[in-house]
Structures are given as C-alpha cells and as structure tokens.
C-alpha cells in the first residue's frame, strides 16, 4: 500500500526499466570508494567513536554504544558472591545457541566431551536463523580457496587477520559437506551440483543457499541434531559473567531470566558463541538482528581481559526495509541484488553498481537520500531508495521470486506489497558486527581455556564482511572451537572459581570515575515507552 507520492515515483522507475536492464555500470575504483565511504558511511561520522578509558583496549577508539557497555560494572557484586553450591560441572560449556554454539556443541561431544549449552532465549533464536541469502565456499571448478581468500581480504579493506581468513576459506568446503551430511537441504541441480550465485564482492559464484531460509534450514537441522544427541541445553539463561582463576577461565555465571536466580557452571573449557550487537541500535539505526544481539559476549570477555579488534565500525546492510513501518530495519536479502534487482532513486536512475561491497552500497544509498535529495519519502518521514525487484522475474522468468525468495515474498505480501510487481523501499540497517574479541586460528582467546566462535569473534572479516562469509564463519569456527575445547578439556582439571578479574575491573572503573549506575551486559533491549518506564515502581 504505497502512498500517492510513492506510486508516482514507481511510475518513473518503470519508465526507465528498459533502458536500465541494458545499462553497464563500472565498479568503483579504490579511490572513488574511499571518498564515498569517507563522506557518507556512518562509521566515518564525527562523534560516533570514543576512546576507551579502561580495559585491554584502553586508549583505543570504539563505537560509543560499545564503550558504554565496556565502561560499566558487573551485574553481580564480586565481593559478595557465594560459590559454595555449584549447579553444573561439565567438560565444555558452550555459551550461545546460534549456529556457532550448536556446531561447537556437536563437535565437542563427538570428541568425547560432556557438554552443556546455555543460551539467552530459546535454543536457535539467533541471527543464524534469520540468515536468508546463503553461505560461501569455493568448491566449484572455476573457483579456489585462494580466490576466496582474496575476495574476503579485499572486501575487508586488507586489514583482516590472515590466519583467520586462511582457516575460513580452507575449512569451507568441508563445512558444507558436513551440513549436507546432516541433511541440510541445499539448492542443487539434479545431478547434485550445488547451485551457487554471486553476492556482493564475490569474484566467483560461490553462494550456496537453501531457498531463502538458508540460515533457518541450517539452524533447524543443527538444533535437531543437538537434541538427538541428548546434549543438555539450558534456555533463557544468559551468561552474565565468566569465572576465572588467575587468567584461566574456569566457568561462567548464568542468570535465569525467569526466576532471577544465578546459576553456577564450572567447566574445564568454555566457548563463547554469543553472536552480535545489532540490538544496541548504533546511532539509532534500525537493525536486522534478533532480539538477543546485545554484545554480551564481548562485554564479559573484555572484562576478563581479552582485547577486541575492529570495534570502531559496524556493518550496515544496505537494504533494510524502509517501508512499511511495521518491518523497518528487517532485511531485504542481498540475494535480490544477486538476482538482478537494481537500486534506483526518485528520478528512476541507478546510482551505484549493485554488487559493490556493503559499506559502499550503504554509503551510496545514504548519499542519494541525504546529500542529493533523491530519496523517496515515506508517510512516516523516513527516506529510502527503490530496490527494483520486479526485474528479477523479468530477467529470470515469471515466478522466480516466489520460487527463490519465498520468505521475502511472504514478508511483503503480509503487508499487501507484491514484490514481483512493485519495487521495495530500502535504507541501510545495522546488521553485522565486523569486529569482535580477538582469537587465534584455534579459536583460543587470550584467556586460557576460553574459546570464541562466530560473530562474537573479530578479525576474519577485517572492517567489512561479505555476505555468506558469516554463516560460514559460525560453522567453521564453531566446529574448530568444539574440537579444540573438547581436546583441551581432556587435559584439564576443574579450576578454582573466583571473580578476581571482576574485582580488578571494578577498581579500574572506580579510578576512572565511572558511575556505578552503568551496568552490563545488557541481555535484552528495552522497547517499552519512556512513559511506562517513568511510572514503574519497584516492589
């Protein structure tokens, strides 16, 4: 149900379609891209970063919203905590029930460990389950892991951690084979060949998909398998602090969201797989992320002394929904552009090649709306540009959208928009945490017996991730973490349970004059109205 202004704009778009289908568009040169980012990408805006006053990255600049969580006190009082009753003793504790956590749990158990998986919401409520587009792996004849490497590192601004990229591209085909063996229904040709397409920044078509429920299909399968193997899972119990003993991680404190009790888990090794940070709403951007993406893992690892990397930037997905209001921020998958949908402004003109990296696409859309004033305004005052989705059916034949993008199609149909006939209005949305905690190629953190896997860890993608490499990351590094943590657990005894690191951190906070009112991790965002919150009474 588009407004009249929007309908007029769509008419202009339809008039130029014939011309645009044949139009060639060149890639930006490195310099053009640099200038575009510098002027229009939100990360480059003044005042979005600040210097950390405490912790392992003290003196470095990170995003304000992250600094707020790092410069904050624990939710528990370390001087007054009772460790006398331990609730669970396990070889491997996995924190986080997304793709990375589930993969880690499965492989840990396969390697002989007794595993406990604790997660914040339901098992599987995660960013993984929302991924539509697909997962990369260089497994075709015309492709190779070194090629994949080059794409990853070029996309990331050449700052990626080489050892991690190496692991990502090397383990990729095996990760796909593993998923296929678990029964993930990938899109395939009749002879079994994987159907693969391009994604932004790929030089070969290496995006594997399961219709447009790629992450959902993977997550449902992994979850089913974890259940089949009787791995113990505790839901609605996020980790709120790690437990340490002199630089060694010896467990974690969980918090039962429903009963407000804490739960003590003692573990030989621990895997952090808590995912991303979209729900921090950096610079008030909408987000595509699940409800629990609040950077908890970063916070508790940082407090225990593990540094972070690349937390001075965030990935905005260029095409978040800008209309209708009910779904603002949700993702319009990149696959649409991969299949030929073009980005078009209010005059009906293209303004960027559609398969640039995400940072460049986002910056170009913001430039179009903010500087050039060629965005299309919605009735609620938001601005966006068109994603000309009907082109997909024009190029690939009628019915392609319904067949290849059923989730997208349904999402819009619910709000009376038929994306095979009408374009979609889009604007960048906060999407992916490019950076994260530092780990090595074995997924070890700087804290002994603590591992990190998935979106929580940083370095793989440099400053900009390419679509399809993060589902890959969570499977590849999740499996690695599972194996390494299980093997390490065999050689490890239970450690002492202390909160020394929290005490130390609190001292630092005090010395930096940071207010005691600041607490973290955040656990869940609060979307109640100010009016409600101001009237609340504590009984």
């Amino acid at each position, binding site marked *: 149900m588009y407004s009249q202004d929007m309908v007029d704009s769509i008419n202009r778009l339809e008039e130029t379609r014939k011309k645009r289908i044949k139009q060639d568009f060149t890639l930006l040169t490195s310099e053009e891209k640099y200038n575009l980012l510098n002027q229009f990408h939100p990360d480059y805006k003044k005042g979005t970063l600040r210097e950390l006053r405490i912790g392992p990255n003290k003196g470095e600049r990170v995003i304000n919203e992250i600094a707020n969580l790092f410069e904050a006190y624990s939710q528990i009082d370390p001087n007054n905590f009772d460790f006398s009753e331990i609730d669970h003793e396990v070889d491997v504790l996995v924190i986080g029930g997304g793709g990375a956590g589930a993969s880690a749990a499965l492989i840990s158990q396969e390697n002989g460990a007794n595993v406990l998986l604790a997660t914040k919401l339901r098992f*599987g409520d995660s960013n993984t389950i929302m991924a539509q587009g697909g997962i990369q792996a260089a497994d075709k004849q015309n492709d190779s892991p070194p090629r994949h490497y080059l*794409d990853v590192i*070029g996309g990331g601004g050449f700052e990626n951690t080489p050892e991690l990229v190496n692991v990502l591209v090397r383990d990729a085909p*095996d990760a796909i084979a593993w998923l296929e063996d678990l029964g993930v229904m990938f899109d395939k040709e009749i002879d079994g060949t994987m159907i693969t397409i391009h994604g932004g920044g790929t030089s070969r078509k290496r995006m594997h998909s399961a219709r447009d429920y790629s992450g959902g299909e993977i997550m449902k*399968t992994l979850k*089913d398998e974890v259940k089949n193997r009787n791995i113990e899972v505790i839901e*609605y119990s996020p980790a709120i602090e790690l437990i340490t003993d002199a630089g060694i991680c010896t467990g974690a404190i969980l918090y039962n969201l429903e009963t407000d009790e804490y739960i003590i888990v003692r573990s030989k090794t621990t895997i952090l797989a808590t995912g991303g940070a979209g729900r921090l709403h950096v610079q008030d951007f909408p987000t595509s992320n699940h409800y629990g993406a609040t950077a908890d893992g970063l916070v508790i690892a940082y407090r225990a002394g593990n540094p972070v990397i690349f937390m001075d930037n965030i990935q905005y997905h260029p095409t978040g929904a800008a209309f209708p209001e009910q779904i603002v921020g949700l993702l319009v998958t990149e696959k649409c552009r991969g299949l030929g949908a073009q980005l078009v402004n209010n005059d009906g003109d293209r303004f960027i090649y559609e398969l640039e990296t995400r940072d460049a696409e986002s910056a170009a859309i913001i430039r179009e709306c903010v500087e050039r004033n060629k965005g299309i305004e919605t009735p609620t*005052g938001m601005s966006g540009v068109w994603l000309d989705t009907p082109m997909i059916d024009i190029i690939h034949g009628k019915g392609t959208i319904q067949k290849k993008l059923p989730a997208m199609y349904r999402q819009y149909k619910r709000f009376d928009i038929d994306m095979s006939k009408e374009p979609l209005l889009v604007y960048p949305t906060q999407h992916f945490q490019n950076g994260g905690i530092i780990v090595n190629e074995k997924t070890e953190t700087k804290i002994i017996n603590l591992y990190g896997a998935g979106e929580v860890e940083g370095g793989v993608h440099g400053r900009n991730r390419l679509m399809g490499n993060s589902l890959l990351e969570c499977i590849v590094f999740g499996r690695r973490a599972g194996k390494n943590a299980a093997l390490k657990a065999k050689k490890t005894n239970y450690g002492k349970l202390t909160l020394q690191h929290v005490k130390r951190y609190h001292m630092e906070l005090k010395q930096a004059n940071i207010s005691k009112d600041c607490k973290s991790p955040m656990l869940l965002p609060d979307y109640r109205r100010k009016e409600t919150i101001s009237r609340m009474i504590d009984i």
Partner: protein
Amino acid sequence: MVEAKKLIPIYITGKKYLVPNGLTIMKAMEYAGYRYIRGCGCRGGFCGGCGTVYRFKGDYKLQSGLACQTKVVENMYLVQIPFFPANKADYNLDELKPTGGTLLKLYPELARCVSCNTCTKVCPQDIEVMDYMQAALKGDIKSAADISFDCIMCGLCAARCPAEIVQYNIALLCRRLYGKYMTPKAEHVRTRAAEISEGKFDKELSNLMKSDVHLLRKLYNKRDIEPEESKR
C-alpha cells in the same frame, strides 16, 4: 509529516489496553508496557517464537498469526503461545532409511491424521500443512520436504491438531532425510575438500598470507569477475 496514529483497544490476555493502530502485535504489547522474555526471538518472522491466537469480540472464529508479523486490529482478544510441549523422536539419522516406514515408526501418531485441515488453516506461513502430512503418510518424503520447507516451527499447527500430531517435527525429519539421502551428494564439494587437505592450495595460500597490502590490492583489483549470466 509523521501521522498521528489513532488509539484502538486491544485485549492482552483479556486485559484492555489502548495502542496505536498499525502496530504489530509485538510492538503493541511493548507499547502497552510489556517487556518480552519469552514469546519474542527474532522479531522478523523467522524463529517461530511468537505464535499468537486471537479472536474478535462477538466472533466465534479463532484466528492465529505471528506477533511480530501481524497488525493489531480493534477489539482483538489475544494471547501468545510461546511454548508448546511437542513430541520429538530421538533418532540417529545415519541409521535411518528414507521411507514412509521410518516416519511411521518414529511418529506412529502420523496415522491418526483425520485430514481436518485445521493445521493448514492455522499456519502463519500459509503452508499446506495437511497436504504435506498426507504426503508423509503416503511415504512421499520428497513432497513433504518440499511443501514444508518454509516452516518456522511456531507450533500453532500442533497446538490445534485433534490427532495430537506434531507436524513440524515430522516435516523436519522429512527434510533431513531428503537432504541427506534423496538427492545426489555434491561431489565437487568433497573433491575440493580433499584437494585442500592434500595440500593443493597450501603454497598459494601461504603466499597470499605473506603478501603486503600493495600486492594484495593489486591482485584484488586485477581479479576477473565471473559474469552474471554464466551457468556455473
């Protein structure tokens, strides 16, 4: 510019609240002052955590939807069903055969389906649930997998099923059987994995890892891009 929204009454577990027209049920609950712990996972129609049933004043018809994807309507009486106690069989996929017999053995209640079509009517994903249950009953795993593909396992079908079948768990089993056994394996994936472990790309990769930014940038800018139209 921003339109003032009309407030409408809705009834959350029977209690009246005034909320702006046009919000989703999820946002309306938050507007009313609820803070979610359960019943809200992805907020985007993918996790199936927010199944909701509702009915309008004076209407016998029970309706359902996802709280994050359904708009509130005046005089809606609603309740969320954040959890449904569902039966799930334990199995080792490696030991199963992709046959109707397997389905019936693991889920004998499948045979109790009375084709009432309630499951289809209740599905927020508009999946022909009854059709895939009938396919499963006939041992047509391929169709069951195909038709059920978009299932997000919200549990609404199972909650309404008079035969106490848990449709979505059977569907998941069908998809896993189909994915594992009924399509040819992607050989090229395994070939490449073997090449990697044999060291075929070691040298090239370690050279790349050692290269400085200038060289990498040159290689990157020079790399050819597979044209959009190419078949594979």
